[in-house]
């Protein structure tokens, strides 16, 4: 079953009055439980495709299906809700809320869904345990290492049981050891929990850890 599917996806930006095509008709299909790496050189359209799949941006033409729903036609508020419930985001710069503890960062998406606070905390602790940060739940991001911060981000991305994780260069700002731990964690989440992962990376070694690599060049899949 397709979790992510795009159909003739195009995106053209306007640089002043000059059209700059970023995606020129991309067709991808990621099925449930897959760990897919999206790779390609700089300017290939990786980030653009990630933004489309993450519903952070709208395509110029073509369709995007998430769990079988054509999300290209959804209203802004429906897109927000869809993101909240279906997608777990992991960003390059960790992007935690600096004033929130690790646990609070993890449960924030659950709070946005209006879930009971006790349930939020219980599940948040479970996820921190899953990523190996049981002892760090009350620490602020500034008290955590880069690898730990990224693991908190991963725990947060899992909190609403999303259809898939969307990871944007998740190890780009980590040293080798921490990067390795994150990749291992991804593999474990995928293998043990069957979580679908769609990861953008420019690191060949990291890409090789995925089940499948989708290569993008000049806005098309090659």
């Amino acid at each position, binding site marked *: 079953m397709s979790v992510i599917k795009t159909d003739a996806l195009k995106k053209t930006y306007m640089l002043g009055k000059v059209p700059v095509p970023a995606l020129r008709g991309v067709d991808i299909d990621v099925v449930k439980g897959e760990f897919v790496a999206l790779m390609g050189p700089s300017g290939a359209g990786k980030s653009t495709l990630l933004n489309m799949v993450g519903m952070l941006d709208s395509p110029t033409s073509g369709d995007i299906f998430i769990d079988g729903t054509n999300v290209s036609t959804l209203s802004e508020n429906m897109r*927000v809700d869809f993101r909240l419930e279906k997608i777990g985001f992991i*960003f390059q710069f960790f*992007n935690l809320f*600096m*004033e929130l503890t690790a646990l*609070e960062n993890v449960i*924030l*998406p659950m709070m946005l869904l209006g879930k009971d606070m006790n349930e939020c905390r219980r599940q948040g602790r479970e996820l921190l345990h899953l990523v190996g940060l049981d002892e760090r739940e009350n620490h602020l991001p500034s008290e955590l290492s880069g690898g730990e911060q990224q693991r908190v981000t991963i725990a947060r991305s899992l909190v609403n049981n999303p259809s898939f994780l969307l990871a944007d260069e998740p190890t780009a700002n980590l040293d080798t050891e921490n990067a390795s731990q994150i990749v291992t964690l991804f593999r474990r989440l995928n293998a043990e929990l069957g979580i679908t992962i769609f990861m953008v990376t420019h690191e060949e070694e990291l890409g090789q850890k995925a089940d499948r690599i989708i290569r993008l060049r000049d806005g098309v899949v090659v």
Partner: protein
Amino acid sequence: MRLSIRVILFMALKDIFKDKRILALVVFALTIGYTNVLMSTAVMNSFIGLFYDQITDTTVPHIVVEPREEKKFIEHTESKVKNIEGIAGVVGVASHLNSSGIVILKNKNIGCSVVGITSSLEKNISIIPEKIEKGNFLNDKEKTSVLIGTMLADDLEVSVGQRVTLVYSNGVKREYSVKGIVNTGFLFVDMLNVYVTREEIESVFGTHDRSTEIGVRLADRDAVGTYKLLIMKQLPSDDVKTWEEKMGFFVQLIGVLKIIWNAIRMMGLLTVIVTIAIIIYVNVTSKRRQIGILKAIGARNHIVLGIFLLEAVLWSMMGTFFGLILSHVLAYILNSIRIVLPIGLLVLRISSEAILLTVFLIFIASLLAAFMPARQGSRINIIKAIWGG
């Protein structure tokens, strides 16, 4: 709308308390702004209240009946006084027979206002009987004594028991013993007035049952307009004025002062508005990426808007709370120092109405000030916010 309020409150509180020093600075600025607004209101209201009270308690009763322009006296005073006394809501009526004069002691002679009073009735319309600083008040039948305002007494260097000469406007010159010194704290009374009994001044002018004014005190000073019409119907041949009409110049002066004070108050309010707008704007600008993340993980625009608006409200509430404390402390200190103005002792009172009005104004101002930058924050483009550009 899910439980957005919980997230808004949670995030707003976390953001506010994340840096205690900044919080202290912001709250301090807002406290000063709030105190400025509240204190300027308190000073204005206390000053105007004191001025109006002094006028109506010592100089011009709530309603004044005077002879028409072409006449010197109100005729048949006693019956007119009785008529007015019968009106419900009138708490006191007394007539005066006034004259200008010169008071003389040794080689000093000073112009004055001579007020002829019925001593037993005067307490019904003024506080003069309670304001005897030295000596005693007059009796109704007393014909050889006067009361003198304290500043006038100082100018004359006269004290209780000494004798002064009073020259009336009709040229009659009489000698009196100073029975008491009147100290109302109100410049116009203490500097100008000499009080004699009505019986004495009637004998000076050779008249009876006539007066130059009838003063009326009401239970409600603000109802003067209604009572003026009622009294006008009873006394069609006389001129009936409210105290505001009688003191027109001073009331206008107060009106100008009010405008100045309100301008000062608005500046205070503007300070609060600008402070909050800057804080929210800086907050939004410095947290673009976090706002982007919040929206990316599923927060709708109204949640982001709500967080910043609630922060503004919480800040203003803290500023209001500490401003209220500071204002009361300042008022206590200033009242302890005793600010004596030419119109009397200024006692600063922070009324609950002023507090409620200021809280309301600050609350609305905070929301208005925060709205534009907060809305700007809520509409941030997620991609630009997270990845720059």
